């Protein structure tokens, strides 16, 4: 076997593995039966650093905490303690799909005493590819972030067209290989859910260039 072909054979499994998507996770569409609290537990909030290189990525699953305010619906949630900063900074929240399941997010920003200062509804999130993203300028008085699921949108679907490119090695003569490119697309139907993968990051507001 020519060395080029041997090399291709060696890297092909790695290339195929890189093409594989995130693992399939069934969507959680109901929080019935889960113990819920009326106010978020801030004592267990994870500390977020003011450092773009230190985002917190976590999966909300069947074990996620549940919030049920008086007169409101049930939400899975996670709390973060925000960094201390004299200046506003950029706070980003991204919900990325796990298979075809996407956590449907909304946000609450709380002060030191747990009072809600600002809410960011689900509608303010925008797509970044197949992920949902919100970027906001956090104020120094905002000390906690609650990322909660948006019950009214859970169970809804959205479809995305995702392009795929492939490169096929084709032997042409002894030891020579031509790479043939081809492209196609597929439709990915995503379900909004109470579970999924969330990434939160804080960083100084970038300078425009």
């Amino acid at each position: 076997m020519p060395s080029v072909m041997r090399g291709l054979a060696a890297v092909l499994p790695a290339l195929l593995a890189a093409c594989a998507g995130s693992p399939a996770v069934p969507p959680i569409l109901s929080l019935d039966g889960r113990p819920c609290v009326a106010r978020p537990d801030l004592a267990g909030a994870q500390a977020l650093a003011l450092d773009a290189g230190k985002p917190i990525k976590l999966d909300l699953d069947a074990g996620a905490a549940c919030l049920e305010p008086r007169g409101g619906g049930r939400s899975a949630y996670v709390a973060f303690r925000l960094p201390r900063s004299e200046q506003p900074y950029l706070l980003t929240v991204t919900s990325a799909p796990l298979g075809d399941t996407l956590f449907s997010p909304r946000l609450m920003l709380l002060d030191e005493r747990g009072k809600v200062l600002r809410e960011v509804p689900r509608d303010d999130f925008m797509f970044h590819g197949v992920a949902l993203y919100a970027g906001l300028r956090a104020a120094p008085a905002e000390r906690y972030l609650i990322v909660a699921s948006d019950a009214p949108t859970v169970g809804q679907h959205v479809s995305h067209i995702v392009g795929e490119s492939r490169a096929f090695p084709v032997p042409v003569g002894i030891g020579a290989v031509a790479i043939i490119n081809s492209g196609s697309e597929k439709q990915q139907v995503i379900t909004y859910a109470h579970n999924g993968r969330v990434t939160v990051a804080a960083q100084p507001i970038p300078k425009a260039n």
Partner: protein
Amino acid sequence: MRTFRGAAVMIAAAMVLVGCASSQPEIPYDRTAKAQIKKIGIVTPAFAEPSVILLNSVGSSFGLIGALADASMQSNRDSTFKTLLQQQKFSPQDHFLERVTQGLRAAGYTVAIVPMKRDGSSFVDKYPTDAAVDAYLDLVAPVYGYIANGVGDSAPYRPRFVVKARLVSAKDSSVLMQDRVLYNPLGPDNTAVTIPADPALQFKDFDALTASPQVAVKGLRVATEQSAQTIAKLLQ
């Protein structure tokens, strides 16, 4: 000359592949400044020529010769599509500006149009000082038209619209918002707001696209409108 033109077209196609990714970071709107921003001046948007891009073409597998053949074919598609838009009397630039203006007015802003001569695909270096506005909205559309991810039924032509937006304070030139909007992103993109394409608006190949000019314009009109709505939403 023909080679240079071919190279330029290939560079443009490469930009499309990465969604015209730039080093310009996303900066969310400074809503604390919103109370002071009542009147927005939209400077004349910078629009490139319309294009019809075919990714992963057969030619892309055959080095420079294939690339030059691709460039020639793309150039033909681009000019045919441009003529189609003219015959249908559709100006993406005018329609986009009209819809952004509507969206901003619906969001409570007063809007003025600030005429400027635009070159290239960069934001304006220096905004006028005599316009009585609180902020300037700078819009650049480097790519718009149609795109297919390959040849064949599994990769139809769909509308594509890419626009960069920046809101700059007239008082101190600080950047109050900056983002990029991509209609029909095709690939993953975590540096821009993306809008999924309408699966119903597609053409199996370029001939089918040119055979239905009204539908082709409708597709681009939808892409233009949704991109304009997104720009307005970024400023709410």
